[in-house]
């Protein structure tokens, strides 16, 4: 097993490593999936926004009634999820585009991996908050 941190020098001095054909194929698949997720997420969020604006204009009382029908933790969780999804859509789209640019021959792999790191950070924070809300809901159920 490698000692923690001992790989820093090895990474810094390592020559650029060419990716194999199978690794390039997997990277292509990752980029395509990321773009699909970003597009689907953007359409879903846009539809949700249109629906909410439409209901708010036509029948604002119904919107308040629908919000009151849910528990506070559910409303907070849904709001957090919507905000995080917006960020995730942007990050995944950027990741997919960077991967495509890299496969075309541009030096965009660091940007793609940076976007994936930011996506993971965002999702970690969301998961932590959701777990806390779930825990409070489970506590209330007992």
């Amino acid at each position: 097993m490698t000692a923690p941190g001992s790989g820093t020098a090895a990474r810094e001095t390592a020559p650029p490593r060419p990716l194999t054909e199978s690794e390039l194929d997997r990277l292509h698949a990752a980029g395509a999936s990321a773009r699909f997720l970003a597009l689907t997420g953007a359409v879903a969020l846009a539809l949700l926004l249109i629906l909410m604006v439409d209901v708010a204009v036509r029948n604002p009382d119904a919107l308040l009634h629908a919000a009151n029908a849910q528990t506070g933790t559910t409303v907070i969780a849904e709001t957090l999820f919507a905000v995080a999804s917006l960020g995730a859509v942007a990050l995944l789209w950027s990741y997919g585009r960077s991967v495509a640019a890299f496969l075309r021959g541009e030096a965009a792999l660091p940007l793609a991996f940076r976007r994936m790191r930011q996506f993971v950070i965002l999702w970690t924070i969301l998961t932590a908050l959701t777990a806390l809300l779930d825990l409070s809901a489970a506590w209330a159920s007992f």
Partner: protein
Amino acid sequence: MATTTNPFEPPRTTDLDGDAPAVKGPRVVVPEALRELTAAAGWVRGLARLTAVSIAVQVLRFVADLGHARGASAIALLVLAIALPIAISILFLIRLNRYASASERVWGGATEAVGAVINAQASYLKLASVVVGISAGVFTFSLAIAIGSGRFFTWIYR
């Protein structure tokens, strides 16, 4: 260095490459990309652990709600609303653990593990695409039925 018959020929740029392996285009993993992967290692492990905690909490909630459920339809609704997401979360957790292990290997200096990281990223995103694709399909199908039967959001637009 390449040898020619002309002793006054200037050196070629390829002579500066030394013994570096031939690389096809710039499709290589540069140190900056490795730094990004290693910087993400801790976060990926954290996300995997939090996902495991989240699954445990959801299981607790499922058990608690199951105690309050009355009738077969209520239990079926609980299974659909909580047990199914738990099963999907477990699939994500398996992929996240692979991603975290591969990232930690890169962090430890094993640059050959970059392929495993890419594989884990692709696997995670593929699963997310399948889940989102099925959800979008079910949503579109139910929306079409609701619109077709004239019951689309009548509770809102009354």
